[in-house]
């Protein structure tokens, strides 16, 4: 983890000189603005922040941040960022990826970064479509989705990114929405504080190829009844008047939504992101229906586990501490180790 340094920066310091080239109205703008205005809060000097991305509309993100940035290749950002983070523990490394980038071509790297618990803050911009390649369905698109490559509807069932991350042993899992800056920043704050991999799914509107995918979660008329705002330590209730709540159904495995009036207050689940057993967060991740009803946002899971970076580093440091002599002397010793003979 980057040690905090007292620097006073403003949103301006994080805007690069590059012209932003997303489609007008794209949800990516809102996320960029939210991240840029959040960054000063970190108190980390710009040169110690690195954004690494793959390929996709979302992956253009690093060009617009006046930090260090690496726009890499499709799907590989978690792997590249792993090498950077492990070898440079002084840096704050952020990965920006899309649903295709992270879950299709790069699925392998994502799950392995999460299981290792590499010290990365991974922001997955989920627009449930391939934006950059002009509108094919993605691994988060609904079954039956009609797109350019699926004119009669896709036959693929989607991934639930949070369920996947939890299955991959992620220690921090959260979801937020592009249009809700306050919420987005609160999640970023929690992610930044987490040691290890922080996985954040951000629902992002692609107004060109999948417009309105998350409208029910955004429209004033529906959002309160659709969204479950998770707050650590608070009973999980939602709805305009708190008319819904989440309970452990007796005899069942997961969690279910009930009318608050129909259950005893003691039966309402109190949200605890620190539950060691991932089954709880997993059950939360399964609540939404296909129509987006009962979509939790916020921090699902946040549990401590040593980061890969720290474990690897301490091995190297321990070995160095035990060594004696200059590196040249150690090398000379290593070369002459084993069976040697001398010719005079």
């Amino acid at each position: 983890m980057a040690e905090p340094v007292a620097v006073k920066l403003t949103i301006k310091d994080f805007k690069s000189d590059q012209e932003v080239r997303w489609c007008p109205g794209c949800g990516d703008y809102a996320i960029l603005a939210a991240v840029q205005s959040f960054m000063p809060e970190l108190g980390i000097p710009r040169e110690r922040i690195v954004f690494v991305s793959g390929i996709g509309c979302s992956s253009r993100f690093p060009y617009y941040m006046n930090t260090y940035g690496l726009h890499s290749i499709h799907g590989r950002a978690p792997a590249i960022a792993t090498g950077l983070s492990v070898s440079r523990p002084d840096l704050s490394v952020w990965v920006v990826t899309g649903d295709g980038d992270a879950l299709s071509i790069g699925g392998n790297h994502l799950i392995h970064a999460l299981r290792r618990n590499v010290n990365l803050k991974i922001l997955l911009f989920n627009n449930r479509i391939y934006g950059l390649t002009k509108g094919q369905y993605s691994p988060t698109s609904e079954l039956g989705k009609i797109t350019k490559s699926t004119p009669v509807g896709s036959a693929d069932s989607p991934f639930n990114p949070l369920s996947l991350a939890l299955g991959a042993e992620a220690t921090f899992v959260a979801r937020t929405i592009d249009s809700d800056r306050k919420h987005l920043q609160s999640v970023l704050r929690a992610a930044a504080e987490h040691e290890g991999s922080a996985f954040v799914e951000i629902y992002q509107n692609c107004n060109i190829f999948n417009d309105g995918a998350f409208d029910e979660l955004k429209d004033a008329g529906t959002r309160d009844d659709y969204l479950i705002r998770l707050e650590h330590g608070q009973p999980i209730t939602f709805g305009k008047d708190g008319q819904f709540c989440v309970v452990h159904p007796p005899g069942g495995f997961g969690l279910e939504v009930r009318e608050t009036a129909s259950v005893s207050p003691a039966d309402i689940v109190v949200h605890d992101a620190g539950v060691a057993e991932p089954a709880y967060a997993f059950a939360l991740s399964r609540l939404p229906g296909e129509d987006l009803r009962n979509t939790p946002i916020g921090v699902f899971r946040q549990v401590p586990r040593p980061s890969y970076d720290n474990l690897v580093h301490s091995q190297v440091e321990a070995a160095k501490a035990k060594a004696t002599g200059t590196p040249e002397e150690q090398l000379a010793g290593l070369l002459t180790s084993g069976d040697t003979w001398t010719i005079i």
Partner: protein
Amino acid sequence: MTKQVRQLDRVVIRFAGDSGDGMQLTGDRFTSETAQLGNDISTLPNFPAEIRAPAGTLPGVSSFQVHFADYDILTPGDAPNVLVAMNPAALKANVGDLPRGAAIIVNTDEFTKRNLAKVGYTVSPLEDGSLEGYSVHPVGLTSMTVGALADHDVSKKDAERAKNMFALGLLSWMYSRPYESTITFLERKFAARPELVSANIAAFKAGWNFGETTEDFAVRYEVKPAKMPPGTYRNITGNAALALGIVASAVRSKLPVFLGAYPITPASDILHELSKHKRFGITTMQAEDEIAAIGATLGAAYGGALGITTTSGPGVALKGETISLAVALELPLVIVDVQRAGPSTGMPTKTEQADLNMALFGRHGEAPVAVIAPKSPSDCFHAIIEASRIALTHRTPVILLSDNYVANGSEPWLLPDVESLPDLTVEFATAPNGEDGTTFLPYLRDPETLARPWAIPGTAGLEHRIGGLEKADKTGDISYDPGNHDFMVRTRAARIEAIQVPDVEVEDPDGEARVLVLGWGSTYGPIGAACRALRQRGHSVAQAHLRHLAPMPGNLGEVLGSYDRVVIPEMNLGQLAHVIRARYLVDAIPYNKVRGLPFTAAELESMLEDVVKNG
């Protein structure tokens, strides 16, 4: 009984047995003893890809060949003078390689009906006269070992397993090897089980004493030490030398090293070895696949580490897209390809040189990289340091093409003086380089090397964004400008051509040669041995060997032009020959074999003799 002692100048021994018989270890120990004595040595292990193929079958045969001499030698030897065959399968698999008159030591205990039938012998070859042309020594290796260990507190199975030490003892006696290092080795290896230390030492000594007393072995041999340059030596395999070269690169560059790898034969040993040397600031990562391995390595290089990724051909294929990214990012990166026989899984434990095309051309877009190849096991040490030097000074990916033959073969290595190794230190960018004194231009180049500044995250004032999209000259901003792209493509090619590589040296002792043999990589030994043999027989022939395959040495065209014929032996279907023909318009004669085995000096000698005589 006093035995006759005969002097020999060179001997080739092949230990062959079932994969479970410990032949690699036996060969290793014999080699160590031989090294202690000061002979020149070259070794060649040959083992199946299966960890334990069914016992006693042909696919399960594992062998280890060692060539030692009182002069300097270049190859593990074409044909064994002595074969140790631990079972019928080992005999059957290897007898075809033996010249008439060779000695065969067979473990008769394994020549049972059942074992003979497993490999298709209906009558024992020990009895049907088929081995008449050889000097056969039937020895009950297993029963004599078990007998010798009767008083030891070990199971029958452990006693039987010590038969390889009996064989080693016998061979050590036959060739008058000093055995102290083997005793120490056994003490160390079985430290946790003292009963096995004493059993294995007893088996070794029983084998030695058997040689001394039995009448079947009337002669004992000596091979005098070779005259080698003074200094301290150790016997080293190519993979071990390469790993040490990486450690040396860490020390001489004063940079942390990041090694990303995914296990693959025959490259995994490099990862294993380096994972033991963390104290040099070396981080090893066993990634989820080769793409992640090179990705993490590139990420570490971006952060200022010396990044090295090690693999074999199938892995290089997976790394291709990331190598192209590194070409675009212009960051230092070393990719080690320990080649094996392909395509696809091919023959994972057999050698080949068929990845040259992939190294030179196997990427999308115009994506030139530097390519270099070691010529012998110990040369892997210097070759990887050279690869690191090029990568660091020129900020480019460098592919090092080793192969299974150099990786697993071994030879004595005159240990270098650490201070004499090249200085690999580089400077990171620390300040803006724009004319206004405040802007940083990530693609402003050094006029000589054309390398761009290595500006690592953490450096205040140099924050910048780079990526795989085409970059504008100097600023590194995204650019779709046609003229700029043309310029950048040509500049990336010019960057590789700007790498200084030493002239290729030609060995043409009498200066009379009209035929030049050009090779690269691991064929150096067999080509050199063939040329020597030809010269000894009064023919003139010149040898040149390429370490640098991209860029090629500046004098190569001139060298090629000064011979009437150029012959290019390769363990592929003519990949270097293609390049030489295309680049230098030389009508080179390719000589190609892809048998998964190194060339023999004899076959090259007869092929070259034909060219020398008939043009």
